[in-house]
């Protein structure tokens, strides 16, 4: 269900580390709870984000939720395909529906994130 090679937050974001660039997206649990996603408010390239800080908003037909950065760094890429077609996040949240790529400031922050198993346990309790 939740890819093993990713790390997770309690706020339902996933992070994929590739060298010093981290790709971030929403988990399957999040997209499913949100329902049809209709709008994404994502930062500009070059924006700084803080671990645990807000970096955007995801809006569905039901609600609007903040997006929280799993790690600190600078935004280097934003998924234009997703902002154009927010339904992509519902369809393929771990693949085509990624949200932003961040240049990692402090690699040790990744250790604070949950593994797939820990995340599964976390949402099991929700």
């Amino acid at each position, binding site marked *: 269900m939740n890819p093993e090679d990713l790390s997770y937050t309690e706020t339902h974001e996933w992070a994929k580390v590739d060298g010093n660039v981290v790709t971030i997206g929403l988990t399957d649990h999040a997209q499913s709870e949100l329902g049809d996603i209709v709008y994404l408010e994502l930062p500009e390239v070059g924006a700084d984000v803080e671990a645990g800080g807000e970096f955007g908003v995801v*809006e569905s037909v039901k609600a609007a939720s903040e997006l929280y950065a799993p790690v600190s760094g600078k935004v280097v890429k934003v998924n234009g395909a997703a902002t154009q077609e927010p339904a992509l996040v519902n369809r393929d949240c771990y693949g085509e529906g990624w949200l932003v790529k961040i240049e990692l400031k402090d690699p040790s922050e990744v250790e604070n994130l949950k593994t797939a198993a820990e995340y599964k346990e976390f949402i099991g309790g929700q």
Partner: protein
Amino acid sequence: MRRTLMPYVPHGDDTVKQMLGEVGVGAVDDLFEPLPDELLRVDFDLPQPLTEPALVRHMEALADANRTDRNSFLGAGCYDHFVPAAVRHLVGQSQFYTAYTPYQPEVSQGTLAVIFEFQTYVAALAGMEVANASMYDGATAAAEAALMCLRLRKERPQAVLAPNLHPEYRRVVETYLANIPGVEAVTLPCCAPYGRGGTVDLNRLTGSLGDAACFIMQYPNFFGLVETKLADIAEICHREGAVLVVAVAEPMALAALSPPGKFGADVVVGEGQSFGITPSFGGPGVGFFATRREFVRQMPGRLVGKTTDAEGKPGYVLTLQTREQHIRREKATSNICTNHALAATTFTIYLSVVGRTGLAALARRNVQNCAYAQYQTTELAAYKMVFEEPAFNEFVLRCPRAAEEVRAACLKKGVDPGLPLGRFYPEYDDCLLVTVTETKTKEDIDRLCEVLASV
């Protein structure tokens, strides 16, 4: 599948007893147990109830204090236009008159459809792509526009205002910004009375918008003058990174002038009172708010959208509610969570009764009456026109002495010649703002001149 929609029927005693039983209390008063005694046992210092005849006499005595017999040339943001009887009759239909905010589209299609029509009229008059379901009045609409622009241009700390934007609109913008750290409303001396003429001076505007999130001006402006350089003003604003907000206090003018949207305005706000709502001692009014499609998610207020229902038929709903309090709370674009629906309905019905050609004819009549009044008053040796620029239906008239004195003397003769401008601009304490709508006859205007000449 049509059912009788929920009529308003109060609970009977049996139903109340049943509900109390379910909840586990004996009487309604028991529900208030947790409140401290001193809050429950309060004596209100109110007069005794009156019988219906006594109440009617009391209300009539209050109403008699109103003077409605004056030949009045007051305007300045609140205009006397004729309201056709058909408007009052239609607005008074209980389906319109008693309807509440349409939270449930299933039972509010009528209300939602009317508000959608309102939005459509506003967008058409303003020349803009989207309009909301209405604000409280023109002044708060302007203030909300300032807040929206500060959100759109987060790095800019100022809302820059034209001096000939309605002084009360400026006060309200200042009030809204007063307790927000790091932002301020600034009046830019870019027209009279600070120098140059009655309309916004391009040279004084250029280079002044470096810290501006927006520039807010009025069309026609507070002195009644038509701002003819909107395209140039829009160009300067955009070049210097500011959003152009145009406020319209007299929307009747939009039936005679090109719409602000045509010249590059980004936001058009204003007061809808002119369309079917009597002046009523200053209120209530109805604000309108229109903007570009690209800014719609930053727009405050309710928004009615058109969609299709489960059977594929057209239907209306409140939409983009993630801008609003009940969904986003502290992140909402505004704390407004309602509109002036009855006033917006009146505005809509007035426009549909008067019609496109009717409205244009009314606007022309305003211009003609005002021109006649300008000509006739300046034929009087002691009175002078202050500005040369074209006016819509109000103009600034310089008097031979203090305008308050001139007005007081005119009132004794049953004529209210206009607003003494000294109340807002000390430099113009010898000037009146004279407003002439389609309600004035030649005889009314001739009488104004007769009285002005005699005081």
